[in-house]
């Protein structure tokens, strides 16, 4: 559930106690069906991952901005060895370049791992089964 009391803009020293709170807000918004990332109020840089200050200009002023979940797979890795992950092998991990700009780590559901390839169009699905950020997954766009 979106925390409606959370401010739409923030001052990184005071508004949130921790970076973890920003992640929690991101996932709460995702659960409510909104893919939102932080936009710097000073230099307009759209940032991912969550951070209290802008990595571009160091401003602490920012707002959540809903963005389109459409993007392109930059690349994909298919794990055949289980390195202590909670996920059963084989599984895929992708890096998605959102059309909006930010690059997100994720996984693609609904397509066999070995059919995934760089350049494929995907769209965010905000109801993934994973823990933490992994409730954000992607699906291939229908042609």
């Amino acid at each position, binding site marked *: 559930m979106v925390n409606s009391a959370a401010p739409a803009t923030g001052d990184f020293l005071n508004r949130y106690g921790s*970076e973890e709170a920003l992640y929690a807000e991101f996932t709460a918004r995702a659960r409510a069906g909104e893919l939102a990332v932080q936009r710097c109020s000073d230099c307009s840089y759209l*940032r*991912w*991952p*969550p951070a209290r200050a802008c*990595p571009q200009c160091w401003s602490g002023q920012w707002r959540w901005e809903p963005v389109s979940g459409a993007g392109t797979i*930059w*690349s*994909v*890795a*298919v*794990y*055949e*060895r289980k*390195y*202590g*992950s*909670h*996920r059963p092998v084989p*599984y895929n*991990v*992708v*890096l998605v370049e959102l059309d909006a700009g930010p*690059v*997100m*780590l*994720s*996984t693609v559901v609904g397509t066999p791992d*070995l059919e995934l*390839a*760089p*350049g494929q169009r995907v769209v965010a699905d905000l109801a993934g089964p*994973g*823990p*933490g*950020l*992994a409730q*954000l997954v992607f699906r291939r766009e229908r042609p």
Partner: protein
Amino acid sequence: MIPDQPLATVLGVGTTAQGELPGLSPDEIAVDAALLALNDAGIDKSRIDGLVTCKAYGNFGIDTDIARLLGLNPAYSATLDYGTCNFSLHLATMAIQTGMASCVLLLYGTAQRSMGHDFSTPVATGVYGERDYGFLNIAGPAAMGMRRYMHDYGLTEEKLAAVAMTFRQNASLNPLAIRGKPMSLAEYLAEPYIVRPMRRPDICMVSDGGAGLIVCHPDLAQELSGRQQVHVVAMAQAGGQRSFQNPNQLNRPWIGTAAQRLRDRYGVTPEDIDVLYIQDPTSLWVLQMLEAYGFCGRGEAGDFIAGGRIGLGGELPVNTNGGQLAESYMWGWLHLCEAVRQLRGECGQRQVAGARVAQHCSTKAFDRAATSVLATW
């Protein structure tokens, strides 16, 4: 062109047995390496006034602990959180250049295999949800970078095989090496994938071992030793800590700025290099460094490594020791020890005839890059 003013001189190198060293702590292994390096340098420990150590798995490798074991109160000492060898060498060289120390002992010891380190952690900060998505171990990001490289440039798995096959071949002539058996293309292709498209021979092993170097002021080296001297003549680093906020991060075009610094600051270009060392946690590094440092053009590494060009006797021998894919996983330290031994002409069957200039390229995961040029004359 190779600078004729050395920044520092490598007086000695030491390498312990590699593989499994049960019963020894990482710090004890580092002390073993110190003794070997001291013997090789032919000096007494009283000459050592600087110590640079490298943090090892399990919170070992701290300079204060190791200095105590060595019985040293060095004028200068430091521990690098990621002392993959170039970074340690650069710090020692800076200490020498500023006069903070005149003779620095550099050490790394690890018992990560005996201690059961499974490397099931994200390689970077973890802020992208790496644990949530299972993006663990260096093999994951390396595989992702390799897949993109294949997509961009048409590299095939058959061509990629040349990296691991070459290093296995080199390792077969290196008594220190753990994977010292040559590997055919068919054998490579029969190996299981770890993270597609990377197979087991593309990923470095987990091993115990130690290595040490003694690096001193060039004037002091002349005074202390009459042997063939190997100098540090150029060094540079580059940063990519902004991670996926950098374009094309897993293929790291920013490493090219280190090559640019070598050229601008020291006049060193690829044509100067006789033998090349690339720290190789995975085979991807070899392709990336060959291109970033200008040994071939962007996207050309797959063709460049074909036909024996990077093998012993080739135009540009790479990792004559076998590297981390075949010798041992020592964060690039063994690459540097091998470079010194090659320039001294001590490498027997795997000696590159007439090698006078060596370059070592390494990284800290996907975050930083460093390179050093060693020369003898």
